[in-house]
């Protein structure tokens, strides 16, 4: 071929390629997962059984942007898929405001939220009115969401609260055991928290209003760094979660919430009420089965799988479902 013809052929190929790939891009955003054909026999011990009627219901499962949320999102997504629903995943959406907006806009059908977060960030319950009992907290959340057209399903046994953490050296040096011990010392300390911490009553705002603390500086960092910033010395104080495996591993000290700033934080799965209706009784049953074994120890182990062992949330979730006989070992 002469160079000219070669060039022309190459250009034509490039143009065709661009067109083909462009069309591919247009169409590739919808990728349902799960609910595929399964010809193997279900083990009789698998608690979640596939109901073919559910395949007509499509559920888009979302999650917020930290490890525990991604694991929970995966667990529910895989559990619903095992129950026969057509499941799509939109995990790692962002903070709680972003996730709730996605739910209300119909971008997702549901995601796992925490009772405490809902009370403070969505319903703006003043600190003095916060319920201490987990069941009460859930009841309040459930009623308020019902008015919004959102169904809040019964919560998990585990509660994972925001916590104020320091290294053991800092705790020893400054004699810190409870949060109010920071009075008079916080103005020399740097606090690191998630970006949304700036506006939350169970985070920086609460520390300022309830405990009257003023910090030398507040630095917003990605929530995934909440322990690294303590260990590498950038942060004097950091906001962490109860179920973090790094607390014990790094010997961090959690300061006691003596003024009761933190409500209970059990995880409750939120879903758009209409979709929940349409999904039928299998939905609630599946959620119940999933939640039964999610105590604090198990949740922490799952977090450790991802944060320490560097597994993917998908694998950790699959292992949870299989270990507790919720799905058959072959996955699906």
């Amino acid at each position, binding site marked *: 071929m002469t160079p000219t013809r070669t060039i022309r052929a190459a250009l034509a190929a490039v143009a065709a390629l661009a067109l083909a790939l462009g069309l591919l891009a247009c169409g590739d955003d919808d990728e349902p997962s799960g609910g595929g054909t399964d010809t193997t026999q279900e083990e009789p011990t698998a608690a979640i059984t596939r109901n073919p009627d559910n395949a007509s219901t499509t559920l888009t499962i979302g999650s917020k942007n930290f490890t525990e949320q991604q694991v929970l999102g995966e667990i529910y997504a895989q559990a619903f898929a095992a129950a026969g629903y057509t499941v799509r995943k939109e995990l790692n959406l*962002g903070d709680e405001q972003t996730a709730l907006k996605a739910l209300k806009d119909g971008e997702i059908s549901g995601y796992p939220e925490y009772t405490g977060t809902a009370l403070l960030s969505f319903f703006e319950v003043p600190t003095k009115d916060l319920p201490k009992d987990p069941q009460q907290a859930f009841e309040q959340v459930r009623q308020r969401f019902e008015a919004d057209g959102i169904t809040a399903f019964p919560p998990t046994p585990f509660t994972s609260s925001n916590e104020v953490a320091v290294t053991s050296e800092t705790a020893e040096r400054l004699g810190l055991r409870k949060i109010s011990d920071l009075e008079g010392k916080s103005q020399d300390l740097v606090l*690191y928290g998630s970006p949304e911490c700036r506006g939350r009553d169970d985070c920086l705002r609460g520390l300022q209003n309830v405990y009257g603390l003023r910090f030398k500086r507040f630095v917003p*960092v990605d929530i995934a760094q909440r322990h690294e910033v303590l260990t590498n010395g*950038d942060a004097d104080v950091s906001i962490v979660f109860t179920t973090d495996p790094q607390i014990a591993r790094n010997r961090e000290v959690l300061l006691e919430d003596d003024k009761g700033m933190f409500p209970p934080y059990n995880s409750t799965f939120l879903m758009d009420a209409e979709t929940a209706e349409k999904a039928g009784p299998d939905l609630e049953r599946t959620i119940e089965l999933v939640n039964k074994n999610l105590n604090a120890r198990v949740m922490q182990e799952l977090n450790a799988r991802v944060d320490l062992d560097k597994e993917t949330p998908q694998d950790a979730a699959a292992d949870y479902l299989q270990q507790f006989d919720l799905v058959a070992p072959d996955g699906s």
Partner: protein
Amino acid sequence: MDACGMTVLGSVLSTFGDGLDFIVRERTGRGGGQVGGPAENARLVWEHLKLCVAAMAIACAVALPIGLWLGHTRRGAFLAVSVSNVGRAVPSIALLFVFFAFLGAGFLNVTLALALLAIPPILTNAYVGVVEADPDAVDAARGMGMRGPQIVRRVELPLALPLVLGGIRTSSVNVVATATIAPLAGVVTLGDPIINPSIYGQEGRLGAAILVALLAVAAEAALAGVQCAVTPRALRRATGRPRRGRLIASPRRRVTTTP
């Protein structure tokens, strides 16, 4: 929702309207603090510029002397070319995360990462600018008895200035863009409402996106103006534009720039 579907023009326009409103009107963000409005946004722009200027200062201080000297001594053509090629291939976000993983959060660490990002275009363009400086002028300078550093300073640098500024222009655009993701490493810039919209809301996200786009265009235009001002009339291209000068890599042949 089909990604290829049409969006009602009105809702798109109103979304952008919300973004513009965020820029001009202060409002209470989630959590009670004030966000938005000219003062708050100006502060974010200032933080953004601070980071960019610091990174560019370090990058120029490192890259210019090396590039000019390599060009003057006609050594290291391969290095000058490779630095540019490899530098272009490193994703800015990867560099940011590498620095974060090894050094932690903070203004200094992010500045170093951005400076590293900015060095390749400046170094390569300085090198090429000197190499392509009129050899007659350099010979004349040598004939007049000037020594190496003098030649660089008084003959080669002025002749290379348009290309050098072109490299600085390219780097600046990259740095302004990468500073947008600096909040991932704990430095609050204009990218904060974009990456962490929680207290700013979706309007904040859009407003900041608009602002950072304007900032980048303004910086580029300003530097283009400077570059135009220092380009001798005779060196300008037929289209009247000064050369930005990006490098074609071909180590075996004479190093050339793209116009």
